């Protein structure tokens, strides 16, 4: 979305130093998705489309409850449905609202080469600033959750904004407002964690002994958190990563190759410059021309 800049940036893509700002006292926010309360009605999906003016193209039925079958540039949140047979042989229907997790350490932002195309506000929201997006798709490679999608229409990358525009004016995200069961909640991250704790206690009492909060430390925690009945096996929920992390390949690229490359290029250029100044050019002297002429005359005679 466009950059409203009503908040501090704490991170800015392709920027070596994030500029300081004068605003302070911003509290971190979080969306809490209580998977155990979700009934799979997809109202959140509709609300997201409604608020963000998204109307993705109609798709063919793919034989599953997901509709459409995957996230796309017009689908920033998607209900995913998984059927799981537990140890007692009972069927559990695990429904998860998929979308950007708003990582504290965002892989998309780390990979992005366009200055200011991906920013993180002081409240923790990770936002794509379309104006600056160049459509390279590096964010897709940086993301541990396979979320961003590049549009073929305008060649810009899209994902959930956590309704940064609504949040900026004191409203909750559209999906939160619409959820009929209270499965999606929004507030300060601290409050959401407190609330999740109470809920997890309830779930444990009801026999979900592995219930827990999904706020993965590997990416510094996230600003979208899940209450899972099976916190021990997140992958049950349509492939939610057990240990999400920014790929080591991205780390090699950004933390090793970048500085080494810069040093190497600088060293090579400086070396050439110094050699050029110290040694001077390699010239052809008059005696070289004379030798060459002699050689040519010798040949002409023979």
């Amino acid at each position: 979305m466009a950059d409203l800049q009503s908040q501090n940036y704490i991170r800015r893509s392709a920027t070596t130093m994030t500029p300081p700002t004068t605003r302070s006292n911003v509290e971190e926010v979080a969306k809490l998705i209580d998977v155990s309360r979700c009934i799979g009605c997809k109202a959140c999906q509709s609300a997201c489309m409604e608020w963000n003016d998204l109307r993705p193209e109609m798709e063919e039925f793919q034989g599953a409850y997901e509709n459409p079958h995957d996230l796309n540039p017009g689908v920033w949140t998607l209900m995913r449905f998984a059927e799981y047979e537990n140890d007692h042989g009972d069927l559990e229907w695990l429904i998860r609202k998929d979308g950007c997790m708003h990582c504290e350490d965002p892989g998309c932002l780390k990979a992005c080469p366009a200055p200011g195309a991906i920013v993180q506000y002081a409240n923790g929201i990770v936002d794509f600033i379309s104006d600056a997006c160049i459509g390279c798709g590096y964010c897709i490679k940086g993301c541990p959750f396979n979320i961003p999608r590049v549009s073929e229409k305008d060649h810009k990358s899209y994902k959930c904004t956590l309704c940064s525009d609504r949040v900026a004016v004191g409203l909750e995200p559209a999906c939160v407002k619409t959820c009929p069961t209270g499965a999606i909640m929004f507030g300060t991250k601290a409050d959401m964690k407190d609330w999740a704790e109470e809920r997890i206690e309830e779930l444990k009492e009801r026999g979900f002994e592995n219930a827990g909060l999904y706020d993965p430390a590997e990416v510094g925690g996230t600003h979208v958190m899940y209450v899972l009945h099976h916190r021990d096996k997140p992958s049950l929920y349509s492939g939610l990563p057990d240990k999400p992390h920014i790929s080591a390949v991205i780390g090699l690229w950004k933390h090793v190759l970048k500085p080494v490359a810069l040093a190497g290029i600088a060293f090579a250029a400086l070396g050439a410059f110094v050699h050029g100044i110290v040694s001077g050019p390699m010239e052809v002297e008059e005696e070289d021309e004379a030798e060459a002429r002699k050689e040519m005359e010798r040949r002409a005679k023979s």
Partner: protein
Amino acid sequence: MSRPKDAITRYKTVSRLNHWLTGLCFVLLMLSGLAMFHPYFSWLSFLFGSGQWMRAIHPWIGCLMIASFLGLFIQFWHHNVWERRDTEWVKNIDKVLAKKEDEVPEVGRNNAGQKGVFWAMALLVPVLFLSGLVIWEYYFGHATSIEAQRVALLIHSAAAIGAILVWIVHVYAALWVKYSMRAMIRGWVTPGWAWKHHRAWFRELVDTGSRGPEPNPRNRAP
């Protein structure tokens, strides 16, 4: 200086055009590539209109580059076959850099440094092309797995840095060895230049009565 009567042709017109097309592609790819590699170079995107234009044009220039480079490869590969004297030359690189070329083995059409640049590019350009295809989001974004694209991105960046280092050597050598640039732009060198820098090639031309760039095959000693 206009072309003297006894000048020797070093590069044919087609080779020169082919070379400079390749060079133009390389420079444009390097500028746009660096802009997408490190924030220090992000400002270079304005040379291409905008970041979007730059991202869109970079792979197409790459396609032109591989085609153009193929032309160079076909024309030049046989000048770059490694010989024993090249190894000697490399061992004496310090003498070359100290301008004591008389103390190293005589050089043929290309010296070991030029051959090194040629083969390094012959390896790196195809690697860059193929890894570039994998990360060409618009056409091939869905053709491979994201993990494969991450690896391709790393390979592409590393190969590009390698190519830029080779390019720096190439450009500096061309500037340092006086009149190499004239040879590459206008195509000819003086006999003294050929004698000094590529004596074995010069002798071959003189012996076969050729004015370059190739020895005259009819007059080649049996």
